[in-house]
């Protein structure tokens, strides 16, 4: 396979008609939230630009991002993009293995120096020289630093690479750290979620390929196109939230009627993701659609923020197990008790002072 093929070349070689190719470009523009006038740009980029080489590394992770990426019920988009991006190194999906595969990574790093995209799934252990995650005979910490040095940009797939996820949940025994804490001098796109939605993943890659730039990012380094709004704001159960119609237990009538899951601990109101827009598995459903509260998997440290089934739940506060309301009630109770005690002492003193003056008189 020649190395500088464009997307359009691959489409043609695979027997995909131009009509289907244009359909794919239109759909990609829709997923990226672009105006129809941008479709010709996507078509042009797909036809003229060589494929963007991608090195996909796996650190401390569960491969759910890859699972999300490859597993979708609409093969048209996801599979085509998966087959079409020049995924030159991926230690999970590659046919090659061992030194053969590691050589490919070194070769791509040299040939496309400063041009390839580094996609990182999972994060690196930083304690004890990264010994808790060894890949290919070296620590993942070293591999990540080495591969990141010549990358054009880094995509941090999933909650692990973006924020740390379960690996760096308290007490974080391996010192797991997200990519942004290890690589500081490269543009990083955080694509959080456990896993992220497959269309979001492919959309980010397509954006870079089309425009040669990273998508517009928000304050937490996430593509605005997919992480600009909360799940809550686009949730189809929002009407029940505004009406105050809530599910109160998982077997009540409200559950069957599909009312709002806010009181069941739904993190939709504090979670930025596209689940309620794009949905999962090619638009089949998403957690809230299936009757389960959102657990907020695309938010930082979501493992350490208490129960998935309570709002503002038993959040660990300054090393205690108290929640906000318990701390508040104790503080207010203590203040009331203190005031009462102070009043009692004042009364006693005043009475005594009165007696003293009477005695004097």
């Amino acid at each position, binding site marked *: 396979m020649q190395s500088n093929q464009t997307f359009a070349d691959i489409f043609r070689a695979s027997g995909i008609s131009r009509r289907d190719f244009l359909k794919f470009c239109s759909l990609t523009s829709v997923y990226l939230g672009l105006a129809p006038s941008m479709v010709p740009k996507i078509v042009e980029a797909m036809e003229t630009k060589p494929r963007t080489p991608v090195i996909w590394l796996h650190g401390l992770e569960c491969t759910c991002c890859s699972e999300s990426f490859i597993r979708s019920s609409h093969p048209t988009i996801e599979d085509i993009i998966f087959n079409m991006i020049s995924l030159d190194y991926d230690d999970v999906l590659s046919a090659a293995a061992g030194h053969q595969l590691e050589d490919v990574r070194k070769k791509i790093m040299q040939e496309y120096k400063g041009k390839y995209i580094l996609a990182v799934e999972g994060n690196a252990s930083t304690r004890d020289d990264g010994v808790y995650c060894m890949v290919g005979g070296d620590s993942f910490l070293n591999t990540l630093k080495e591969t990141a040095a010549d990358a054009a940009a880094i995509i941090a797939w999933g909650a692990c690479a973006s924020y740390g996820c379960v690996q760096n949940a308290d007490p974080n025994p391996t010192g797991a750290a997200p990519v942004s804490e290890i690589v500081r001098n490269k543009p990083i796109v955080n694509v959080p979620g456990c896993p992220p939605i497959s269309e979001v993943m492919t959309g980010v890659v397509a954006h870079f390929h089309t425009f040669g730039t990273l998508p517009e990012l*928000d*304050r*937490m380094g996430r593509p*605005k196109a997919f992480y*600009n*709004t*909360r799940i809550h*704001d686009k949730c189809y159960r929002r*009407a*029940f*939230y*505004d*009406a*105050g*119609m*809530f599910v109160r237990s998982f077997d009540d009538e*409200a559950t069957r009627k599909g*009312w709002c899951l*806010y*009181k069941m601990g739904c*993190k939709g*109101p*504090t*979670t*930025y993701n596209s689940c309620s827009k794009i949905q999962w598995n090619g638009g089949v459903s998403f957690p809230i659609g299936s009757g389960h509260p959102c657990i*907020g998997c695309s*938010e*930082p*440290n*979501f493992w350490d*923020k208490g129960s998935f089934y309570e*709002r*503002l739940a038993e*959040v660990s*506060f300054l090393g205690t197990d108290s929640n*906000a*309301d318990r*701390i*508040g*009630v104790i*503080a*207010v109770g203590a*203040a*009331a008790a203190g*005031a009462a005690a*102070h*009043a009692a*002492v*004042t009364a006693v*003193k*005043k009475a005594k*002072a009165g007696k003293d*003056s009477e005695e*004097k*008189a």
Partner: protein
Amino acid sequence: MGRIIEEIYVWRLPVRLYHWINALCTVVLLVTGMYIAAPVINPPLGEAVWYKGMAWWRYLHFATAFIFIANFLFRMYWALFGNDRYARFGGFRPWSPAWWGKPFREQVESYLFLRRDEPNYVGHNPVAALAHFLFIFCGSSFMILSGLAMYGENNPGGFSETFFGWLIPLFGGSYSLHFAHHLMAWIFPLYLIIHLYAVFRHDVVDRTSVTSSIVTGYKHKVEEEPS
């Protein structure tokens, strides 16, 4: 009761208005905020479009919050440019060691029953000034900033999100900011208890009509009881 020997006009009308608007807003914000955190009223039967069960509580919370903010900003203006000797920031200098000196120490000792006589101030005593700074100034500022950051969440790119959205990553996510906002709300009932107790106690001990002064504006000096 001794005879009133002097009337002093302490709290001018803007200060009294601020106080009561602030008190009312704080209570409404507390009640609606706690309801939003844990909506307890049982859902009505029927169509969601018929009801505004949660929406009204939120609307009330946000509308009151904007009155609270305007009132707070007005008070800041009054403190800085109102030329009001009992309502200005002038005497409050916690960065200066002198401020923590004798008057502050004496007031603390008095509250701890370590001295017999009660220092008497026409305006706020130094301990009260410190409490107001911590609870009302710092507390309100935090609630306003974090509240605006969360208010901006439903309109990305809008005013609140653009100018206050930076608090969300600062607190490590929207959920943590909600938690902090909820936790900090408790300082207001806490302050209310301390505030009411201190006012009533001072009125009983000093007999300066401090309780009614926030309605009438006047404090009184009373003749010592004949002994």
